[in-house]
């Protein structure tokens, strides 16, 4: 399909505003102006509508396709949250309003949403306070580690290392490094963190440990109470990667379990579709002792019921976002929590875990499941058996695309060879899970007889497999290269 730039035809009128009386050349010195046009396309509205409608048809999305992409929580998100985020009373609100002295009175509704969302997240996670500022999960990680660093600095602790288990989310080491820490990788045993291995790397120089629980194998970290104790003994903080909170809502609270910091991916658990890669939101919750270090500003409530922003936190890590995070995403999360309520959130977790275990059992024996025990919201299988007849995890993924399913996450976590990570989520019906399991089994049976069926997939999509090496070597990153 041609790029939109190739469809341009000079002279076609788009959605133009009225013409100014004076041109830029009459309003500004020539030396400040560009000498030739930027090169944006000239298209009619229908040209644009048709181009993007056709592009959209070259995409899988949750609304049209089962999307068991592990670690990504591709569940169905209800439409009413979009209605909320599009209310003009929110979309038209300028973010600097609270900085205009008394003008906080002009945005009481928005401040109330922020205040109440923080309170709800505190109760869901058992934390003392939340900040909504981080704009994505990885941004939450960075914010969380910066808060940990501020805590140690304030106490005069000389800490230089952060421990990252090999079963943690892949972003954790990069986040710790960008916050200035040396990263210590911790190998797991039987799929979970082993206190004996932990003891080998734990000393006074450790600032904290970043855990994903359930971890990327979908397993619950059974040794958690022991791990908490060990870290406390050296004044190290425990970080919870709460990207996939739909595994534990109402069953465990991060704060009660002894964690000091947690980030949530609101777009995974709380009602925001992923948008093809963003935007999301990555709020961070902290225990009591870390509250002074939260980012500026913080929303507070006065005795008269008015809300305002407090900018006066001398020990704060400062600003991680221009304003209050991705407010549009926070709105959706707030509305979603109100809609589900206590029982609904618990039920979401129970169903997510039930569906994952059901699919695990249905696929058992067809794909190998290296840690074959009760999992949480997801599980990891391996295509090791299939590799003997020349079929890899990648090939299985591509066969699924031909059947109209998005593939599971493949080759992650790195600790399982030929990994296929499935997360069915709580919103998929039993019929969908059964059909998927039946289809996958049939595909694998056919491919075992004729591996070319797998290695040549996909065949029914707009393109077949793409030459990624050529892309990386030629670096054609724009239509002008």
């Amino acid at each position, binding site marked *: 399909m041609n790029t939109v730039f190739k469809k341009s035809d000079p002279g076609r009128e788009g959605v133009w505003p009225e013409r100014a009386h004076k041109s830029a050349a009459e309003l500004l010195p020539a030396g400040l102006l560009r000498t030739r046009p930027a090169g944006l396309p000239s298209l009619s509205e229908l040209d644009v509508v048709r181009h993007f409608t056709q592009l959209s048809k070259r995409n899988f999305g949750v609304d049209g396709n089962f999307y068991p992409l592990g670690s990504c929580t591709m569940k169905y998100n209800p439409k009413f949250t979009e209605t909320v985020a599009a209310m003009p009373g929110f979309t038209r609100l300028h973010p600097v309003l609270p900085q205009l002295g008394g003008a906080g009175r002009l945005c009481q509704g928005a401040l109330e949403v922020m205040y109440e969302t923080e309170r709800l997240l505190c109760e869901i996670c058992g934390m003392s306070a939340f900040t909504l500022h981080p704009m994505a999960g990885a941004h939450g990680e960075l914010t969380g580690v910066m808060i940990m660093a501020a805590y140690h600095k304030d106490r005069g602790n000389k800490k230089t290392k952060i421990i990252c288990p090999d079963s943690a989310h892949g972003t954790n080491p990069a986040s710790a490094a960008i916050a200035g820490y040396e990263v210590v990788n911790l190998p797991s045993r039987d799929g979970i963190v082993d206190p004996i291995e932990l003891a080998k790397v734990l000393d006074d120089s450790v600032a904290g440990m970043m855990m994903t629980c359930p971890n990327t194998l979908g397993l619950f970290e059974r040794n958690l109470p022991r791990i908490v104790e060990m870290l406390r003994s050296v004044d190290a903080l425990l970080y919870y990667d709460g990207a996939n909170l739909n595994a534990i809502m109402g069953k465990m609270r991060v704060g009660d379990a002894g964690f000091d910091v947690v980030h949530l991916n609101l777009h995974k658990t709380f009602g925001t579709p992923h948008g093809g890669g963003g935007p999301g939101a990555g709020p961070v919750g902290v225990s009591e002792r870390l509250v002074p270090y939260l980012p500026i500003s913080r929303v507070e409530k006065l005795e008269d019921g008015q809300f305002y922003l407090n900018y006066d936190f001398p020990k704060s890590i400062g600003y991680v976002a221009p304003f209050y995070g991705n407010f549009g995403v926070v709105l959706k999360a707030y509305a979603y929590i109100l809609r589900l309520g206590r029982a609904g959130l618990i039920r979401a977790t129970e169903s997510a875990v039930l569906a994952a275990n059901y699919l695990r059992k249905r696929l058992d024996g067809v794909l190998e499941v290296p840690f074959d025990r009760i999992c949480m919201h997801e599980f990891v299988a391996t295509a090791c058996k299939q590799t003997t007849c020349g079929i890899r995890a990648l090939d299985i993924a591509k066969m699924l695309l031909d059947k109209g399913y998005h593939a599971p996450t493949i*080759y992650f976590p790195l600790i399982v060879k030929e990994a296929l990570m499935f997360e069915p989520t709580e919103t998929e019906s039993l019929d969908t899970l059964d059909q998927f399991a039946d289809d996958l089994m049939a595909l694998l049976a056919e491919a075992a007889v004729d591996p070319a069926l797998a290695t040549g997939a996909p065949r029914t999509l707009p393109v077949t497999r793409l030459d*990624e*090496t050529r892309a*990386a*070597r030629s670096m054609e990153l724009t239509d002008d290269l």
Partner: protein
Amino acid sequence: MIPKDLKYAKSHEWAKIEGDSATIGITHFAQDQLGDLTYVDLPKVGQTLAAGAEMGSVESVKAASELYSPVSGIVTEVNAALESAPEMINQDPYVAGWMIKVQLTGGAEGLLDASAYEQVCAEEAH
């Protein structure tokens, strides 16, 4: 695929030592593990290298790996052709795919001979 006349580092670089100069590249085993290379970042002429220290990196579509200098010395020449054709390392890692030439400032202590390196590869392949 492991030439007898070269010396090897455990980190999979080779060095061809001739008098007080050495030619350096990565081994067949290394390029095979990385897959089709898409980019090489090499040190510049005149740069001083210490044995065992990082000297650059290589990238493929799905992997990246640091390069460690197998010897100490000063870079005298860089294989400029690799910049636009990193695939030469995949095709011919020991000859056309050489990376840099170095004026040695030390010996080749600690480097492995072909048979010792073969063992390293055999262990890693498991």
